[in-house]
């Protein structure tokens, strides 16, 4: 039986070969659903530790991107064997790059880290209109809406989306977080978001606090 700490360490150390090898070894040992849940948690802890190393300025964006890729490959192998229940998710996030912006590198990092953090993420893609965000809120009732934008014109789309959510009478039902290299306090206030971050791991922590999981 594979030791769970080895999963965590392989992910944290970005040892892709080791991580894939461990997963295959683990799955070959005919694990129970309980075992699989624990293994996934161990991988998630690895991603959380990657986030910590990023905040400590040991890891940089390249490591966030690579860890997402390793985590994706691991989960691709595990997922078919895992009967997931809704109770295991800590919250739902509707995520997208706002209208007029097609950049997705940052958004994709956030998506993976939110999933690794226990959230159910509905990724709407790029160039997402206000109406699409509103429709998604109505359909899946997420606790959190996350908007990404790399370039400054996107901030106007983010503001338009917040206004549309208000107009639809849904503003009180969601917390809104925005992110991107040029997002700051001034932009966040202009947009009318509840929070912002330039760091994916920090953004995940903010979301966890909002659903009451983190102090």
């Amino acid at each position: 039986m594979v030791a769970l700490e080895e999963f965590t360490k392989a992910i944290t150390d970005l040892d892709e070969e080791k991580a894939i090898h461990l997963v295959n070894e683990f799955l070959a040992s005919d694990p129970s659903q309980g075992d699989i849940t624990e293994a996934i948690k161990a991988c998630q802890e690895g991603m959380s530790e990657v986030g910590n190393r990023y905040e400590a300025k040991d890891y940089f964006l390249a490591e966030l991107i690579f860890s997402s890729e390793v985590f994706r490959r691991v989960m691709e192998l595990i997922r078919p064997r895992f009967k997931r229940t809704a109770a295991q998710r800590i919250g739902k996030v509707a995520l997208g790059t706002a209208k007029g912006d097609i950049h997705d590198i940052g958004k994709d990092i956030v998506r993976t880290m939110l999933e690794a953090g226990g959230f159910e993420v509905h990724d709407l893609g790029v160039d997402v209109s206000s109406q699409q965000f509103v429709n998604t809120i109505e359909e899946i009732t997420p606790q959190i809406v996350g908007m990404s934008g790399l370039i400054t014109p996107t901030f106007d789309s983010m503001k338009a989306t917040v206004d549309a959510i208000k107009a639809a009478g849904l503003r009180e039902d969601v917390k809104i977080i925005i992110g991107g290299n040029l997002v700051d306090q001034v932009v966040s206030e202009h947009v009318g978001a509840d929070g912002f971050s330039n760091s994916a791991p920090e953004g995940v922590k903010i979301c966890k606090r909002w659903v009451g999981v983190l102090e």
Partner: protein
Amino acid sequence: MKESADELLHQRVHRLKTAISLNEPDRIPIFFQTLSWIPHYSGLTVQETSFDYGSLIRAIEKVIQDFEWDGIWSPGGIWPAPVFIALGQTQYLVPGESLDARSSFQFPDVSCMEPDEYPEFIADPYAFIVEKIMPRRCTELTKPFPRNAISLAKGALEFGRYLTLMDAAYERWRQVYGMPVLTKGLTGAPLDILADFYRGIRGLLIDIKRRPEQVKEACEALLPLQIKFAKVSYGEPKTDFPPIMLPIHIATFLRPSDFAEFFWPTFYKLVIAIVEMGLTCLLMLEGTWDPYLDYLAQLPKGKFLGLMQHVDMKRAKAVLGNNMCIAGNIPCSLLGHRTQEEVLAYAKKLIDTCAPGGGYIFAADSTLLSLNDAKPENLLAVTKFVKEYGGYRK
């Protein structure tokens, strides 16, 4: 008496050159990185100005006259859309086509080179780019001869027409308004080019983990082409003003050890070659460059203009003050959304920190794309402030 265009041109160029060479000019030079802000300021869409080059030129002339900075940012980022269309180009998204007409050009992160193609690339990068990358990027080039040749000719002729028109406009701005364009020509560090144009950013960053030796070899193989690109795009004569433009995207994704191993070696060789050609260089230091300042301090003295975004400017001045002219950092979020008082307070603090001893130019923290990146009244107010407060007492 109002100064002549000739006098203004001489003063502005001298002021900028003095700052770049790390001396104290008569006052702090000022410019703003106005790009698609310019069409918006004239009530035009980016689409219009990327098809009708005359409308772009007129929109720039309005900004030149209304703000009277010491230089005008090169409009190169508003690409001539007909060239892209002639080639069937798929990497850059064109405003008015898959993007809103008012959008700036955007570049999704796409890869048109497979990881197993590194050996072929390394063996002959030029052949690989011409024979594999370009047809993958430009659908017209995949058509059989003579269709592909006709499309290439159309695109090349249109690009030549655009360059001729713009060169004439640049010369007109010098003669009529005394306004120099801030940069000439362009190149990129090999690692950046690999990421931006061939493997994609995500692809390249993963390659650094999975096949580090091939990445390094690919950078070395590409280096001569990037030196040549600088040489040809700048043209003649090779002189110390305007500087050549060097955008940088990939560097701040890297942890310092990977920056040192993968980005720096071929970047350094490239910029040394640029300096040896007799040029100066504008480095677009977007993102947070604090972890890498000690590397920049190794560059040849007085030959670089570091245009900063989020760096700690006090530390940048301390580390780089003796070797590189620094500029930038005033946030577009302030310029676009806050009061004149807040803008001027930030400007004063920035000037007090960065100006002493010279080697400092006043500019924004990022390229102005949206009209909301700077309120015109804030730009006017801060320009007036810098001209009054930014004098060097002799």
